[in-house]
């Protein structure tokens, strides 16, 4: 029941805000819907902690350890981003960058996007998963081009085409999966695409078909994850869209896409063994990490910088999933969580920083600490966290990933470390220049919303020092499930 409410809330919100999004109180409504969604997600989480995994609607939706924390996380970041965007969008409006009509579009699409992501996470049906992913793309395309500037249009166009093509390939993979499932499950109609059913018979699925299917699924969903060399849409879309959108893209959409990849990987591994999918994931992971690290070195735009950092971290997670095994999967799941929290916090800070200085060029952003200490500290600590500095949680997962890599894939360790080192130098050097030093900038018409930044960072800090037992249990169960 909670599952359905969880899905209905953002959908209803989307409809309402699509109609009344231009209203003065629309941002508050947006926050309200997000809060309600989050509350239901917490309720669901509590129920899952109490009663264990559950399914509903003739198995079309389900909650298991793998998606339960992602659902909560999504709802949470969704809520905090809504909080942030309330102030952010007000300021944008004041600065005359957006009109009321655009805000209506923005709010409607924001809730719709939440809906699609929750749908993608909760659905048991791989076909529906695909539909949700495609819908997520479509709903964000217009958000990316919200400013209607030349650059944002270009970014949205690339986003649309590249992800569209990618998603189309994923559909082909889904069809092949269905084709293989049909031969085992009989012509079962809808059921043949249910993940739980497929999981039960995964070792009987035809290996050749599944291998080909996995290639399509990986390339398809991998495009949305931002794996190199399929990542090219990502920095553009992050840089040109409004910052709350960058925050949810980086913090949530990439996670959801990776979630899709891993769901498929579990099935494929059952059929063809862990060797091939694992290697593919590791290859893409390492390639992404390396490429992103060197890309970071030359960035001039702050949002592009952190977009590449997202590619890097998705690479790390993908690599960890590729290695497989209880510890690596555990670490990957933890990393998904902390990356999502940290990266969205960074984007919140970045959003206000760009508003204060009126530029996304890092050369123009100076002395945030003098301008607004909280903002400066938010960006500084967020950056340090994302770079894997203890005591933040990113370090915990990176510690586990690196130590496992030393055991499982010693060849990859130097590459990973090289990338981490280069990324550190690139990102930290720039952040320092932005946060410290003499300041330039203006006062904002509405005080910036920095609470979400610090709430996120506090959570990340907590996860670095102590992981709550129930979360650790979920991670462990999910890790075992992923194999």
């Amino acid at each position, binding site marked *: 029941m909670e599952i359905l409410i969880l899905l209905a809330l953002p959908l209803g919100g989307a409809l309402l805000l699509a109609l009344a999004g231009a209203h003065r109180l629309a941002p508050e409504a947006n926050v309200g819907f997000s809060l309600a969604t989050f509350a239901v997600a917490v309720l669901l989480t509590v129920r899952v902690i109490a009663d264990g995994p559950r399914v509903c609607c003739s198995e079309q939706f389900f909650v298991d350890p793998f998606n339960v924390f992602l659902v909560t996380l999504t709802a949470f970041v969704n809520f905090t981003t809504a909080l942030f965007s309330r102030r952010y969008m007000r300021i944008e409006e004041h600065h005359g960058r957006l009109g009321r009509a655009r805000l209506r579009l923005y709010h409607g699409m924001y809730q719709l996007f939440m809906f699609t992501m929750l749908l993608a996470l909760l659905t048991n049906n791989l076909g529906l998963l695909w539909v949700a992913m495609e819908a997520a793309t479509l709903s964000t395309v217009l958000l990316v081009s919200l400013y209607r500037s030349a650059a944002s249009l270009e970014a949205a166009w*690339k986003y649309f*085409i*590249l992800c569209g*093509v*990618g998603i189309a*390939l994923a559909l082909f993979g889904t069809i092949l999966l269905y084709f293989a499932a049909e031969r085992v499950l009989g012509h079962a109609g809808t059921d043949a695409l249910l993940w739980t059913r497929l999981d039960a018979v995964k070792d009987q699925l035809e290996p050749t078909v599944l*291998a*080909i299917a*996995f*290639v*399509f699924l*990986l*390339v398809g969903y991998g*495009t949305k994850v931002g794996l190199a*060399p*399929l990542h*090219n*849409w990502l*920095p553009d879309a992050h840089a040109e869209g409004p910052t709350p959108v960058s925050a949810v893209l980086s913090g949530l959409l990439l996670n959801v896409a990776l979630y899709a990849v891993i769901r498929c990987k579990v099935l494929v591994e059952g059929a063809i063994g862990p060797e*091939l999918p694992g290697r*593919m994931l590791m290859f893409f992971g390492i390639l992404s990490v390396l*490429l992103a690290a*060197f*890309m970071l*070195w*030359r960035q001039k735009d702050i949002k592009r910088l952190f977009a590449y950092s997202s590619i890097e971290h998705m690479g790390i997670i993908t690599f960890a999933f590729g290695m497989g095994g209880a510890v690596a999967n555990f670490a990957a799941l933890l990393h998904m969580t902390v990356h999502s929290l940290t990266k969205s916090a960074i984007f919140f800070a970045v959003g206000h920083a760009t508003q204060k200085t009126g530029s996304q060029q890092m050369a123009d952003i100076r*002395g945030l*600490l003098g301008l607004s200490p909280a903002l400066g500290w938010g960006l500084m600590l967020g950056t*340090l966290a994302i*770079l894997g*500095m*203890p*005591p933040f949680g990113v*370090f*915990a997962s990176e*510690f*586990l990933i*690196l*130590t496992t890599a*030393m*055991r499982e894939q010693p060849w990859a*360790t130097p590459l990973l*470390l090289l990338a*981490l*080192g280069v990324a*550190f*130098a690139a990102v*930290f*050097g720039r952040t*320092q*220049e932005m946060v*410290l*030093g*003499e300041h330039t900038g203006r006062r904002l018409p509405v005080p910036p919303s920095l609470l979400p930044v610090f709430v996120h960072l506090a959570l990340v800090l907590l996860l670095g*020092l*102590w*992981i709550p*037992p129930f979360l*650790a249990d979920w991670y*462990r169960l999910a890790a075992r499930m992923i194999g």
Partner: protein
Amino acid sequence: MAEPAVLLNAALVVVAGWLAVGAAGLLRPHATALIARLLFPLGALGSIVLTAVGLAALSAPPATRILPIGLPDLPLHLRLDPLAAFFLFLLGSASTGISVFGAGYFRAGAGTSPGLLCLQYHVFLATMAMVLLADDAYAFMVAWESMALASYFLVTTQHRIGAIRGAGFLYLLLAHVGAIAILLCFGVLQGGSWQFTFDAMRGADLDATRATLAFALALLGFGAKAGLVPLHVWLPEAHPAAPSPVSALMSGVMLKTAAYGLLRVTLDLLPFPLWHWGAALLALGLFSALFGVIFAAVQTDMKRLLAYSSIENLGIVFAGSGLALLFHAERMPLPAALALAATLYHCLNHAMFKSLLFLATGSVLHATGERNLGRLGGLIRRMPWVAWTALVGTLAIAGLPPLNGFVSEWLLLQALLLTPEVPRPFMNMLVPLGASLLALTAALAAYVMVKFYGVIFLGQMREPALADAHDCGRLERLGLLWLALACVLLGLLPAPVLGLLDGVSAELLGASLVHPQASSVWKLVPLSAERASYSPLVFLLGIVALLGASALVATRVYRRRVRRAPPWDCGFPHQDARMQDTAEGFGQPIRHIFAPFFRMHRELPSPLDAVPQYRVTVEDRFWSLLYLPLARLVTRAARLVGGIQQGRIAVYLLYSFLTLLVLLVIVL
């Protein structure tokens, strides 16, 4: 004697207390008086407690404790053993003085607010203590990196100055690179058990290759923190950038955590020692020491000079641990214990006199606003407290008897003299060369310190503004006195100190230097009385007696009249303060003799210049040979990688398409 577990808990309470004090500072970030009068003294109180805890735990059996935080499968393991206890003692005793000094020193300024500074400072202290207490890789790494972070923020207190930001960046970057190496080192050390507690590592089964790899990684990681050449470049940048109490803490204490880490890994965690590790460490350490002292001699910024001197001293520490390792590998427990004792003793000494000197530079900086040696001078007349305590530090760091710097050098030379007994044909030849390098370094250190002290405190004031300089406040004096007293006591009572260190060598090497029959409180006899002995107190008594006698003769027996006159002008009546020898001048012989070490740029005036100017800049060769090429390499790689993203959507589609095709070919 307290229970070991109680001691560990007491140490944890101090850590928690420091964190609380720091957090309290954040509550009223601009209440300078509150922070200075209450919080910093409270922190110093914690330091005293920690000193006591360290002292008590030096001879207590190890205590362990597991706290349920950290990773789910790796809760926080803590352990207080003699090695950790020794460094806790060092941390506590040095930071007592520094905190007391800091209470008078920190004030509201342009940079970080006092409250935040208080937080960062105490977090820095707490993380250092945690580094020493950690007993698993995760806890160690968290504490280690947090320590780097806290100190980074302290370094960039005056972040509006571009050079300071640059220094901070370089510092954190190298610290991070070092941390990565340490992490890798732990990854190798676990040796297939995949347990990351230190206990598991102690029992791990490593072959020689892996063990050597682990050693090399540890050397890289801890070397980066200790400023071992060529990883030293951050040190002369970061130390001057930080406020002086922080420089003192970083140089005096934080660098020692690197020594701690290295000793922990090589003598405790690694299953066996190999002689070539010791040789490598010795060579690197000695080179570092020489390099550091040579560069210190040509500096013109007083804090940079001290920073290079820290490179020198850490080089000596590393050389000492290398020697201990070498002896240990050759199954010579007594010499190993001697070398280890020398190493630890030097750590302790350096913590005291370097902190003292950094604090003194802080007072000078406050009083004059100058760091440039070329604009100082004659301050002994305006700042007697600072000057006289700094004199103690200067003589101590110059390795002069009967102060503490001499004791550790003496011990180390004694240990080096035992190397011909090493049953390995090459080592017993090369190590005397090491002794000569060490002797050269020690002698150069005296040169450097004479320059340091003479140019700052003695002579004429080079700038008229210096006449307004004021002496430091009461709390600052107390801090300086504490450290100066420590220098004197450590110099005069080496035998009891050595007795305390015995717990550490018993733990790590299974050997004891203390023979009840030969040693007394007054007399230091490390091996046998026939071999060598040193009794600084008797020695001091001798000097004082003879000195007093001569003074008595000179002043009582003969006339005691004194007349004041201007100094002799050599027939040139227009002498002024600018004509004194400068810091550059003091560097000249060194630049001349050790020319190959430097990259020099000289601007010589031509005969026709209306305003002739002479300028010489000295650069580190490692910048141009190592760091800049590395940066260029990465930039080139980045440009290459950037080339794949050139904006055309068709090309992007082509990437996807090719990826798809290639993967399909692979699965077929």
